[in-house]
């Protein structure tokens, strides 16, 4: 598809990107080193890693930092003057103490308050770091001490939960070494943290989304595309397909709200130009801990020329599965093992879901090498099946689209796939998705999925039939059985809802401000069924408790802290309410959360 599959990589000088959007002009990023805080080198198990903070006592200071990722100076919000924040390395079973001090100047992003949330970590509610639910936040000049026992192991991350500080740079990797040996081996260990940077003040970006949510969608179908489709598919098929989208008042090119027109993508805080590099010796096994610390960007990650063996997802070990590519939703983590050999350099390539940009780094035998960087894939179009409007014919129809640059590829395979996963149900005439009454006539709900399906084995829009083996949720098989073992005692169905034009997001059409908490009884086991009634992918994160993802038959598949919900999906997971208190439950797209796709989950006795 990309034409890169078997191209031999040449270890050679850096090839500048030919793409016209900004991949980052500045190599480094951090403008002025603030002295006392060393920059992490992002290697965990290779010689020397001075900026990994490990142990049980940590002092973290939230400070303002001048940076430049695009050539324009900006100010980031960072922890200890590092973007991303330092790698924290804990040990399972230890009690860790983290003193977090807010030293932001008054004009920094949301400076009056800060907070750190330990993403995916089981802990008492008052240590969870969500202002308004767990604590009062950390006001300027204050220090807050987190202290809790670490009851898990694996790859996680931590980030601000105040305003848009996370977007402004406040996120970092969190590695917990297990008590027991891990069921896989490796020689080197690297964190690969992906993120999205904008030169805009995040408040201004949010305001822009409210005013014109389609700002970054420069890929809408044009008059020329219409005539091209008429030529290849006929007038009536083209009109019919355009009419379907026209009636919905949506466009099939709307893959993400914010893309590379606004963002510069970073790998471990470095732009593509900076070429973050991980070293290996041929024959070694290298563990890469991918963490998506983006505010709004799903990445598709691959290393041309290498297979990746996924050994853990969201910090939880899974049966190893070998793939060419994986989609990492915002806030997810995947641990993979690669065995580079035969070349001196391999490109770690992460393109955004909308195919508007990428960030690339290198796995190399020495610094300064670079392998060819592939072009971003053709831009996909959403189909009616993607939108949860099932039907084979719909999917085939929308297959007709070309985009203005003529490189949008249709999702042939998907038509078949969708038909397969829905047709059986539709044939029995039984699955017509019902919707909560609160969605009816609700001005904040612009669409509803008619026949959503789990689609756990669907690689997702833009990844189907691309000639590569792509990881799906169906591939993630937990290495341990469901630790709770109980059948859920009840089921709660929640719909992910929104309005693209108004940039309003919610559960069941009710933004957080108007919502009542979802109340759980301490100790109960329940099933949460999510239905995506929007055209966006929402990574849904429940704090404090695991989301035990179920397969199509309702059986335990894998334990996650963030469950991605592509458009048109209906997925379920089990929750064991073993954490008393008030917990955040939200879409991890930062601006969706801020716009209201957030609920309090309250676990009570």
């Amino acid at each position, binding site marked *: 598809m990309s034409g890169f599959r078997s191209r031999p990589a040449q270890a050679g000088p850096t090839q500048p990107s030919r793409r016209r959007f900004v991949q980052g002009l500045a190599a480094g990023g951090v403008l002025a080193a603030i002295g006392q805080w060393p920059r992490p080198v992002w290697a965990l198990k290779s010689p020397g890693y001075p900026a990994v903070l490990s142990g049980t006592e940590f002092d973290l200071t939230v400070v303002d930092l001048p940076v430049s990722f695009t050539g324009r100076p900006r100010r980031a919000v960072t922890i200890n003057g590092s973007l991303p924040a330092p790698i924290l390395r804990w040990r399972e079973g230890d009690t860790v103490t983290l003193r977090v001090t807010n030293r932001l100047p008054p004009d920094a992003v949301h400076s009056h308050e800060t907070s750190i949330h330990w993403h995916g970590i089981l802990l008492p509610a008052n240590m969870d770091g969500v202002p*308004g639910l767990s604590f009062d936040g950390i006001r300027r000049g204050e220090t807050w001490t987190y202290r809790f026992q670490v009851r898990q192991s694996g790859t996680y991350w931590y980030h601000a939960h105040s305003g848009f500080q996370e977007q402004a740079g406040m996120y970092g990797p969190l590695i917990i070494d297990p008590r027991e040996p891990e069921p896989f081996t490796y020689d080197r260990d690297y964190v690969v943290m992906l993120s999205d940077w904008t030169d805009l003040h995040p408040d201004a970006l949010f305001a822009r989304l409210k005013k014109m949510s389609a700002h970054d969608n420069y890929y809408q179908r044009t008059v020329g595309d219409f005539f091209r489709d008429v030529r290849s598919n006929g007038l009536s098929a083209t009109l019919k397909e355009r009419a379907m989208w026209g009636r919905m008042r949506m466009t099939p090119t709307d893959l993400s709200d914010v893309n590379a027109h606004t963002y510069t993508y970073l790998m471990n805080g470095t732009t593509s130009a900076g070429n973050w590099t991980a070293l290996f010796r041929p024959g070694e096994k290298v563990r890469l801990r991918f963490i998506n610390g983006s505010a709004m960007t799903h990445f598709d990650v691959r290393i041309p020329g290498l297979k990746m063996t996924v050994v853990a997802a969201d910090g939880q070990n899974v049966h190893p599965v070998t793939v060419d590519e994986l989609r990492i939703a915002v806030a997810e983590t995947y641990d993979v093992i690669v065995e580079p050999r035969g070349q001196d350099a391999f490109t770690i390539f992460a393109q955004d879901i909308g195919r508007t940009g990428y960030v690339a780094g290198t796995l190399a035998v020495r610094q300064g090498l670079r392998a060819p960087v592939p072009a971003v894939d053709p831009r996909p179009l959403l189909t009616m099946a993607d939108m949860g409007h099932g039907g084979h014919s719909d999917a085939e129809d929308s297959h007709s689209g070309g985009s203005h640059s003529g490189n949008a590829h249709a999702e042939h395979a998907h038509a078949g796939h969708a038909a397969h996963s829905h047709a059986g149900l539709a044939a029995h005439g039984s699955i017509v998705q019902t919707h909560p009454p609160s969605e009816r006539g609700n001005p904040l709900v612009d669409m509803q999925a008619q026949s959503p399906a789990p689609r756990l084995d669907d690689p997702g829009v833009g990844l189907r039939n691309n000639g590569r083996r792509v990881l799906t949720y169906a591939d993630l098989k937990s290495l341990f059985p469901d630790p709770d*073992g109980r059948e859920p005692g009840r089921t709660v169905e929640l719909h992910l809802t929104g309005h693209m034009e108004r940039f309003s997001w*919610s559960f069941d059409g009710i933004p957080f401000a108007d919502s*009542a908490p979802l109340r759980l009884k301490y100790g109960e086991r329940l099933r949460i069924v999510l239905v995506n009634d929007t055209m966006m992918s929402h990574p849904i994160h429940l704090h404090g408790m695991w989301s035990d993802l179920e397969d199509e038959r309702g059986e335990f598949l894998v334990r996650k802290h963030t469950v991605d919900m592509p458009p048109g999906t209906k997925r*379920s997971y089990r929750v064991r309410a073993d954490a*008393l208190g008030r917990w955040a439950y939200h879409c991890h797209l930062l601006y969706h959360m801020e716009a209201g*796709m957030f609920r309090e989950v309250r676990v009570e006795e």
Partner: protein
Amino acid sequence: MSLRAIIIVAALGIGAAGPLRAGDQAHEHHDHSVRQSSSPATHERQHGHQHGHQHGHQHGHHAHSAQQTSSSSAHEHQHAHQPGHRHGHHEHPAEQPGVGESHEHHGHGGTTHGHSAEPLPVEPIPALTDADRAAAFPELRAHPPHGVSVHQFFQFEELETRDATEGTALAWDGRYWAGTDIHRLWLRSHGERVGGRTHSADVEALYGRAVTPWWDLLAGVRHDFHPADSQTFAAIGVQGLAPYFFEIEATAYFGEAGQTAARLEAEYELLLTNRLILQPQIQLDLHGRDDPARGIGSGLSTLEIGMRLRYEITRRFAPYLGVVHERAFGDTADLRRAAGEDTDDVQVVAGVRIWF
């Protein structure tokens, strides 16, 4: 199979391992519940039956208390709506949406109820201490929630010069809103200045409320500064996005002296490229009665059809060129003829569309 064995062994191990505080768990049922907790999965794997039947089965086999069976089946009933697919289909209950409703299916929490025969988890639920309780619900100050932000938007949809017969005209069509996703204050203004003299100018101040996903209802006042003496109307209208992306604005006006008027505007955007956009637009003005001082006749007074081609240098700044055809009808046309004016007029326009 082996997985089930592990669960059972693990559970038994845990069961044997430690005494929990009295009243925390229904210990007496422990072994029993372990079997129960693993049974449904077995049934499902072996037979792939629909949930409803399975659980019926299962309860029969294990002969649990009636109380428990009923609490479970109340819930499992939901599953029974599903057809008996065997493979690969999603069979989760399409339960009543909303959080409140699902509570009724919740039998017992299972942690504090001494007589509960609910299955126990393999990994026990930790007993709560007062320290846990204190950590769970700290006293907090109020914190602004997500989802109620107030924003504002200002746009000159049209800010242009026109080559009018009386000289160059400057025309504008601007709008501003401030508010939430649902409630907004709208200000709209249209006007035209010809040869340094304001020919027409109006300002509307409206409260707008989103009533459906695509339509806002608006109500407020309109004040005309020109032509002639100023006048004020009450205004009520709708605006929104019709299917197929037609932007519509329709407003009725009721004047202080009993005069009435209506305006209907529709726009469409045709993407030649993603930056070069052709925008046809149509505007109809109707009036309830003759108003010769302002050159207005009753009925359909004027129709304006515009076609503007803009180039979005950025989303916020787009210069354009266009043509506007205005035509007067009925009594309005008669009044114009009487004044020696043309009843229709074609103007070339050039301007910018900006927002911030």
